[in-house]
């Protein structure tokens, strides 16, 4: 999703890795600079407290950049510091502002400038006790896909004969998403109005399958319990390395239970 791909050569792979991870490499670099600067401030007596603050922020940036690279995130997600504040307070705004406030407090304008990276990031709360089915689906966690990317996705799908419909909660009777393939060769990808990345990827996997084998073959696939080909395809696609790790842990757990209860191929 949005990750840059080059030809499968050594140089291509190196360029591909740099493109995908450059932001986090820079983050680690800034973090290292903060740590060195903070240490220097303490060592020279320029300011112990600001020095400690800079080191803390620097370590936070190093840890965050490393985790983003490790888990294949592209410059998004809570930093370690933000996540700690979020876990402690349950307040997303406080978490997002925390690095900036700390940076200002310790006189590090550089770190404050990185707040912009977080501005478009939104998390989804776990709400397991909410009775409404569509809302309770958020219990599997994840990140909101975002309006801008949904717009891009809608245009992409439209060029391929698929209509993206948001806010389909009513038609789906509470379900969060569905993929409908019509006998005239078109299809509709239905999503609730504020879908998570996990949900979008799930429905897009149906689209990939539909496009790969064609509408007629797709509509004839077995969809009975114990031999549910489309859902097994989605599970296999999402379970691939590099994608599975990017799903929320609860969603992964949910996916396993879903395919087992539904009965994929050979289960």
């Amino acid at each position: 999703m949005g990750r840059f791909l080059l030809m499968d050569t050594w140089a291509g792979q190196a360029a591909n890795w740099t493109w995908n991870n450059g932001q986090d490499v820079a983050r680690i670099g800034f973090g290292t600079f903060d740590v060195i600067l903070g240490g220097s401030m303490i060592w020279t007596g320029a300011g112990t407290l600001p020095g400690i603050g800079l080191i803390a922020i620097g370590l936070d940036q190093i840890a965050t950049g490393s985790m983003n690279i490790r888990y294949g995130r592209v410059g998004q997600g809570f930093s370690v510091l933000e996540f700690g504040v979020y876990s402690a307070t349950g307040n997303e705004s406080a978490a997002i502002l925390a690095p900036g406030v700390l940076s200002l407090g310790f006189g590090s304008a550089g770190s404050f400038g990185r707040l912009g990276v977080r501005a478009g990031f939104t998390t989804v709360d776990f709400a397991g006790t909410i009775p409404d089915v569509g809302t309770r689906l958020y219990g599997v966690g994840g990140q909101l896909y975002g309006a801008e990317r949904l717009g891009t996705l809608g245009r992409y799908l439209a060029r391929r004969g698929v209509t993206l419909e948001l806010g389909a909660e009513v038609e789906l009777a509470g379900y969060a998403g569905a993929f409908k393939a019509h006998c005239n060769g078109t299809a509709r990808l239905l999503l609730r109005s504020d879908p998570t990345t996990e949900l979008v990827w799930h429905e897009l996997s149906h689209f990939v399958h539909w496009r790969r084998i064609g509408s007629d073959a797709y509509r004839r696939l077995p969809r009975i319990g114990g031999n549910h080909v489309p859902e097994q395809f989605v599970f296999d696609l999402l379970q691939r390395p590099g994608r599975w790790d990017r799903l929320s842990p609860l969603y992964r757990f949910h996916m396993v239970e879903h395919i087992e209860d539904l009965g994929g191929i050979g289960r």
Partner: protein
Amino acid sequence: MTEADAIQRGNAFVLKNRGVVGEPEYVQLVKRDGQRRYWSLVYGAALFFPEEIAAGDSIDGCEYMVRVDDQSGDVSLFAFTG
């Protein structure tokens, strides 16, 4: 609880919540480590969107998956995103 008991409870649950009379198309007894044993009942999309299915369309993501606790008989909906 027998399979027939579980289906009876599941059908009543579907009727109450979706207003549809129908039978599950897939039933199995599920036992996972650390979890209570339950009957998994899957009601196909054709039960809820009969006209579209009859017209030749396919619908993925609208199965109705119900769980019936094997001991207590409690019925719940296994909701899923798509």
